[in-house]
């Protein structure tokens, strides 16, 4: 409990802001008796001079008359001012209006600044995006072009060996002259075994059996071609 009070109360000991709960009523509490100074105090004001009293009488009457008429004059003045729109309320309303207008202007300016900043940011972002797209497209196009050129060049190279109507006869002759036979098996050393041996021109009658229904490995290999040199293997 002590710790909490120490933490809550301010550092200075004479703080009148926290200890006050309610403003007390003015004057003495009615239950207390009057003070000794005031008790039995009788005031004897001094007598005024008779000429002063006579003067005061007519002066008082004129003064009161003057005050009453002045009240009426002031009332008329204030009413005229209020009717003309110069009254206190009209003034305060004008002040309020001016203040509100100023605040509105301020808010508008702030909003305009913010809008400008945002628009600039968005513009930059959009620009970057579009540039990215363009770049991507261009790079894709360039890549495509490169690949296609490579392809076309390869094709051009390959077209040297294409068969056309003019080359057909020579190519046919060449093909017939150099037949390629893939009907071989190969062992780990690189020896190729052709069975049957490839023949350019068919001599005699070909065998009736053409498939591999029986296991050739059981038969002693008869046709062995010399393996190619080790450097040109595979």
């Amino acid at each position, binding site marked *: 409990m002590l710790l909490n009070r120490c933490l809550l109360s301010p550092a200075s000991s004479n703080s009148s802001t926290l200890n006050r709960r309610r403003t007390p009523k003015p004057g003495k509490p009615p239950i207390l008796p009057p003070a000794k100074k005031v008790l039995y105090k009788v005031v004897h004001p001094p007598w*005024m001079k008779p000429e002063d009293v006579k003067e005061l009488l007519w002066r008082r009457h*004129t003064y009161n008359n003057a005050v009453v008429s002045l009240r009426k004059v002031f009332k008329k003045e*204030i009413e005229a001012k209020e009717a003309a729109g110069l009254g206190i309320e009209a003034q305060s309303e004008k002040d309020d209006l001016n203040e509100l207008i100023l605040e509105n202007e301020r808010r508008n300016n702030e909003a305009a600044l913010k809008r400008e900043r945002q628009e600039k940011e968005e513009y930059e972002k959009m620009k970057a995006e579009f540039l990215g797209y363009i770049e991507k497209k261009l790079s894709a196009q360039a890549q495509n072009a490169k690949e296609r050129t490579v392809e076309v060049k390869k094709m051009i190279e390959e077209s040297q060996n294409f068969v056309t109507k003019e080359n057909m006869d020579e190519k046919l002759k060449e093909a017939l002259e150099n037949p390629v036979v893939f009907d071989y098996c190969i062992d780990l050393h690189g020896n190729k075994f052709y069975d049957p041996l490839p023949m350019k021109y068919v001599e005699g009658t070909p065998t009736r059996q053409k498939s591999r229904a029986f296991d050739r490995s059981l038969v002693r290999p008869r046709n062995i071609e010399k393996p190619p040199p080790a450097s040109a293997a595979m």
Partner: protein
Amino acid sequence: MRQLINPKTFGRPSIGLALFGCTNRPFYHICIFPDRSLGRRFEGNIIEQVGTFDPLPNAKNEKLVSMNIERLKYWIGKRNAQISVPVLELLGLSGLFPIHPKAYIRAKDQRETLAQQVAALQIAAETPAPPEETEKNPES
């Protein structure tokens, strides 16, 4: 029993001097207070402050008074406020109101006392004249 309020005569504010300041240094604010029957005047009771009055004279021997004439006219004319005697005297001195009768009487009394003091001083100044004359005569 608390002060009973008469609804027929209720609702007239009063303009008076409110004492502020500290010990040996009074300072008055000319304030508008609500009806007298609502309790004696204290700081929380003030409706509006309409001026100031410094009773202690400054270095140039002036007692400074400030007044918001527009608001005073409003309260006196429109709202028909009662004005206390010191404030009436100040208004008379300022020129908005005629001079208060009390001020005339006080001024007359002060003039008389001043005249008496001046006469007494003159008499006091004239009394040692005869011994001075006898001294001067043998010199002249």
